[in-house]
């Protein structure tokens, strides 16, 4: 009956109202957690709101955040050799790279990454043969201007912050 369905609906919302006070990953008195919050099970009952600016989920390893440069543990610099593979792979021309030096000594002089157009498709990372770039864990980027470009230093700093290690595979194939 129509009436029965409506009363049932009222019962459901009442249950949710009560359970939002009594159960859930974060109970009522404890409001904020320190450090990254583990993602709750999908079946979790009760209040599960993440109070974002004060609590953050830990991102899963394959999360595609902004593109970062990884620092070579030996030289402390980026491994990018300005081979332009990522530039060619990018569907939208987000990356601009200039290089300097010849042969083995060739390194990226500038590496700009236009964030506002990037669709996080990871094609650049797939194409990189030197394991120089990786999708990071950062997603908190806003700006008040339309062009948001990151340069090499910023991307290196982001890579440091994200704590991603080299896989080492691609680097080994260079020789």
């Amino acid at each position, binding site marked *: *009956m*129509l*009436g*029965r*369905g*409506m009363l049932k*609906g*009222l019962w*459901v*919302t*009442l249950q*949710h*109202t009560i*359970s*939002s*006070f009594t159960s*859930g990953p974060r109970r009522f008195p404890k409001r904020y957690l320190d450090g990254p919050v583990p993602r709750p099970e999908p079946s979790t009952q*009760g*209040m*599960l*709101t993440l*109070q974002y600016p004060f609590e953050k989920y830990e991102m899963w390893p394959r999360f595609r955040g902004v593109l970062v440069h990884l620092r070579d543990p030996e030289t402390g610099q980026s491994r990018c050799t300005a081979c332009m593979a990522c530039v060619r792979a990018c569907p939208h021309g987000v990356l601009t790279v200039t290089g300097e030096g010849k042969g083995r000594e060739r390194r990226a002089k500038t590496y700009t990454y236009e964030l506002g157009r990037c669709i996080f498709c990871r094609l650049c990372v797939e194409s990189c043969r030197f394991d120089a770039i990786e999708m990071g864990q950062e997603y908190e980027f806003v700006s008040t201007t339309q062009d948001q470009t990151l340069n090499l230093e910023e991307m290196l700093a982001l890579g440091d912050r994200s704590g991603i290690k080299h896989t080492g595979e691609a680097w080994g194939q260079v020789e």
Partner: protein
Amino acid sequence: MGFLDALPLTVMDWLRGLLGQGLPAWGVELVVGLIKVVLILVVAILPVIVLTWLERKVLARGQDRFGPNLAGPYGLVVAFADAIKILTKEDIIPQAADRQVFRFAPALVLIPTLLVFTVVPMGRGMIAADLNVGILFAVAIGSLAVIAIIAATWSSGNKYSLLSMFRSVAQLVSYELPMAFSVLTVVLVSGGLSTVRIVEAQVIPFALVMPIAAVTYFLASLAEANRSPFDLLLGESEIVAGHNLEYSGMRFAMFYIGEYAHIFVIGALTTTLFLGGYQGPILPGYMWFLIKTMAVVYVVLWIRCTWPRMRIDQLLDFSWKLLVPLNLANLMLVALVFKLAGTGLLGSLLSLVVNVGLLVAVGTFLVRRARSSTSRRTRALVLGEV
């Protein structure tokens, strides 16, 4: 207890005595009247501050969210943030608008709601004007709200707000009738139109004596306040936002305040008519009034949190084909019961039995008719088949 119960009255008498020393009699009446007016304004506006917060919190909790919790502890002062922001917003008058009426309409919205408070007994002896036509006054004033809506929508010069006005008028005219019938049942039993008399007549709250009338009154007043599930004139998905579509800034704030004050009025009148008003053990009368009113208000918000919006034909069907006949039958049966058995305990018990019996009979009839019906809509509505 008795002291606490009569505390506001004692204060008022003391004030009256104090004024009587320096002022002539009419001056005292004038000052006391002004104090009453201010008190009514406070009683009508103060809940708005609480209700804006409460509605958002109740909605949020029903959906496992926190709701506003950054403005002050538990988001308690969010209403002040709303108020300051909305006061400092730009005030837009559309070019197609009828300027005089457009400016005038928001003022009209609040008046009926505030006027109703004059006949609501908020405690033992605490009523601004104990009219001998009290409850009829409340119903009549409630029907005035539609004038403000008409003025606001027409003057906006917007086709969507005009559509919302048509819906609103259809709704108000349809729900006036079941509302009047349910109020009539109460008047019949209590033997008077005065709100104080109605409250005093409720040894057992009328909600337990005549549940049909109580539920009808509650639903009809929801429709009259344009609250969910009867908030057709808002209809965000079809007609943008209803009667206040073109209003911004302070003028919109008047609609906003009016809406929440109206919710409080629903609570206050339902309490007065069916829940025994200020009557109750231990606590003073005004506390009981407040507790019962807030309970009804919570139910209003709870319904908002749960039920989907009804369609316009369902809305009118519900009123004309179910509520009106049901309440007509209820009125007659209750009149018969109380004529035969008196208004004592026996009469109340019999009335309850008759009410429940009527409800069961109508329910069975509806279900049987729907079972034999071939209309898909009827089956879906009554039997819940999809």
